[in-house]
């Protein structure tokens, strides 16, 4: 659903070009961000929203340069705070379509608290989290999604902290839309982006992104042809969790309350796990699956409806106004206990 006010206006027929700004793109050549930018620009016309009603808000980091390259309204803010800023923007302007562009460091380290609360409040924003498992802009320190033991400039003997799983985090925060896509899978990225952008409420989309300079092929399991066939689990609502080569399909099933991988042919159809986006508990189990023991789910893990923060707040405002009329400062000043001195 598009934001309320934007519905009223008819959007012109846009093409990708309409969303390209006049700024030179300044990411490293070969960076995964280029593909994401292109996919976002391509997905924009599909929203049917006039481009003046679209705002991109970002924090700090390579990904956060994004707004400069979109020919919409944009605000490149400070490290980690984009979700909080977007919350204020939505409360002031519920008629705007707001995107938040962030990274694993920006969104899950310095801005982890704001990410928690924007999701919990279910503010109507589309959050694109570019996860490259590294700090790129500061030249290669490990990030909160880097694997344990990651050797970087700041961790010459390997990192000692365990990574956070963005999808599990988002679901734990009560996110109403959680999805994952991959920078090198353009059609999937476009399709998932559109789903996220159309969600009513806070949509959290993790985009596995390659930083070819500081963490090249961190997601090789999703790039390498052979491994991809082996591990990619395409989530489709109402379809069973099947993955692997066409001639040798595997399935994720539930063994009691524990997910388990089996050969598809070894189990009856009734034992298969059918993906249901409305089942948040199931999504929480899916979020934790990863190679090599499990396949890697991509697509929409969960999509549910819940009250939207700014809509509730504005309903209260409308109710206050319709019950008692608009505020009048002259009346307020003279209300209650007053006395006259002549």
């Amino acid at each position: 659903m598009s934001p309320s006010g934007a519905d009223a206006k008819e959007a012109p027929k846009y093409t990708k070009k309409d969303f390209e700004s006049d700024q030179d793109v300044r990411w490293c050549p070969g960076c995964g961000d280029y593909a994401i930018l292109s996919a976002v620009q391509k997905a924009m016309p599909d929203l049917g929203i006039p481009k003046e009603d679209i705002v991109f808000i970002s924090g700090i980091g390579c990904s956060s340069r994004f707004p400069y390259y979109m020919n919409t309204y944009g605000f490149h803010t400070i490290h980690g705070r984009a979700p909080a800023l977007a919350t204020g923007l939505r409360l002031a302007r519920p008629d705007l379509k707001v995107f938040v562009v962030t990274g694993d460091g920006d969104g899950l380290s310095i801005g982890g608290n704001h990410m928690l609360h924007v999701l919990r409040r279910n503010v109507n924003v589309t959050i694109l989290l570019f996860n490259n498992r590294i700090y790129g802009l500061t030249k290669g320190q490990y990030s909160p999604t880097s694997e344990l033991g990651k050797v970087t400039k700041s961790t010459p003997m390997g990192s000692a902290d365990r990574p956070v799983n963005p999808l599990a985090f988002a679901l734990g925060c009560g996110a109403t839309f959680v999805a994952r896509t991959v920078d090198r899978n353009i059609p999937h990225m476009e399709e998932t982006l559109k789903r996220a952008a159309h969600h009513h409420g806070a949509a959290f989309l993790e985009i596995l992104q390659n930083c070819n300079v500081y963490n090249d092929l961190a997601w090789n399991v999703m790039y390498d042809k052979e491994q991809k066939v082996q591990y990619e689990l395409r989530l489709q609502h109402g379809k069973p969790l099947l993955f692997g080569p066409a001639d040798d399909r595997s399935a994720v099933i539930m063994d009691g309350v524990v997910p388990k991988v089996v050969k598809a042919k070894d189990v009856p159809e009734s034992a298969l796990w059918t993906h249901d986006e409305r089942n948040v508990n199931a999504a929480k189990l899916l979020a934790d699956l990863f190679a090599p023991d499990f396949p890697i789910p991509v697509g929409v893990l969960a999509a549910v409806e819940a009250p939207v923060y700014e809509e509730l707040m504005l309903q209260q405002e409308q109710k206050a106004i319709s019950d008692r009329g608009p505020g009048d400062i002259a009346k307020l000043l003279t209300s209650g206990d007053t006395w006259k001195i002549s």
Partner: protein
Amino acid sequence: MSETATPATGVSKSLKELDRAVIRFAGDSGDGMQLTGEQFTTESAWAGNDIATLPNFPAEIRAPAGTLFGVSSFQLQFGSQRVYTPGDRLDCLVAMNPAALKVHLGDLKTGGLLIVNTQAFDKRNLDKAGYAANPLDDPTLAERYRLHKVDMTALTHEAIKDLALNAKEKDRTKNFFALGLVSWIYTRPLEPTLEWIRKKFGKTPSIAEANTRVLKAGHAFGETAEIFGEHYAVEPAEMAPGLYRAMTGNRALAWGLLAAAQRSKVPLVYGAYPITPASDILHELALHKRFRVRTIQAEDEIAAVTSAIGASFGGAIGVTGSSGPGVALKGEGIGLAVMAELPLVIFDIQRGGPSTGLPTKTEQADLMQALYGRNSESPVVVLAPATPGDCFYIAYEAVRIAAKYMVPVIVLSDGFLANGSEPWLIPDPATLPPIEIGFRTEKDGFFPYLRDPATLARPWVRPGTPGLEHRIGGIEKQDVTGNISYDPENHDHMVRTRAEKVRRVAQEIPPTSINGPATGDVLVVGWGGTYGAITAAVERTRAEGKSVASIHLRHMNPLPPDLGHILREYRRVLVPEINSGQLVRVLRAEYLVDAVGFNRVRGLPLASEEIHEAINQLLGSQA
């Protein structure tokens, strides 16, 4: 009190005229002293007096009963002439328990009225207060003060013995006995309190009945008991005619924002995280959604300021409020608003620090933080209200300046102004200056950092305006185009431009009003909540025939354009502050004047007596 209290002599119940009195109610946190003080204030307002109040309570919500640090008090001064401060020394102290007596007795004038609730002076409470023996048995207490030992607890229970309330509920009403008694002593009308009881306890008639009876019992006790020989009248003050109400600083800040929202016809978003002593602003604003004022209780101080910035970016008025520790956390966000050149208002209700410091006590030590407490060259406008009621005008002015100059404005209030109240002449909102917000919609010739030649403000564009799509951010940008720029000369130019923009706010500042002669021996320069204490001290010194004047700054940055000239018209400049010398440093640096500070940092307002002394010392030292 201008007249010396004389010991009571008989039962004549003579009525004596006073021109002012200072009273403090003190007791346990649970004794309802704040309410008692507030009600006494309302009664005095009805009596037409000018008033200043000083609530003082522990940081702990439920401090252990009977302890010294659990003592809560409410002081007020009321008078038939202008009252500038809550008063220094007490004419009357009501002590509901031994701890309250111990903490506050030192402030009572010799010969002052001391009223104690005897039943609270039991072994346990005496132990907790650290009294080895009952101080009420010490004959010197009654020699030094006009001591009245009243068993308020027993008298309270007696007055309502037939009511179906439990002992605890009955006990809780004893503060109204004290209120009734002191109301009789100072001939205050009971009507406002009776009215308050009716409203407050309308749904619980038995509690209403109990409070009413106990209040009246206290009053009657004063009238009939043999111990009170006289009582006092304080004539109505000569105040400007008009409609008045009691106003606290926090409420005034909130209402100033409401006035600004209504006048500007733009929604206002207030982002805040709960913090003492600023939370009441959030509570107050949350009550007034009809003004299109939207409050966010943010997840932290940083989200509070950035959500306000997001709102400003969207074309609303973004405001955030906190106290010093919270404003420290907001620093980077404020810097973003400086860079993005968006309007933003930040309230800093100063409290004792550093760190957690004295959360419920007042201080003026955030001036440097407001002026300089951010990375790099990050100039903002800083305003400071002088009185609780002035907070209304300052909040309104902050919004007006922020929107006109596209700049952050910090308002430095403090715990004393926030909770203190004064009778406030209600203004006609139509007389407030207009807040003109003209969002840019014209496409031709648009650039995000195009500047208004008079204010240097860049255009404010609401997202949603076709053809003006643009990007802004915290990175340095080229002037006019707003494109990212790392060019050295451009950066230097932008640093100067941002500073010049703030400097130009000086054109908004009215001529400084001088209290006293335009030239003379000593000029006292104050800012913030010390206004009353300074004014009273200066007027007293002048009454002694000395050549002393004062000015009170409401614009801390930029400073008033006429200030440099004024400072040079006096031989000495004295700057009293509740910090270790912040404004005085600014004045010395800006104007090369040999200003000296008078500094006390006790978490309490400055006393006019000590300022008076400091002025005299300075006068003496130059002779």
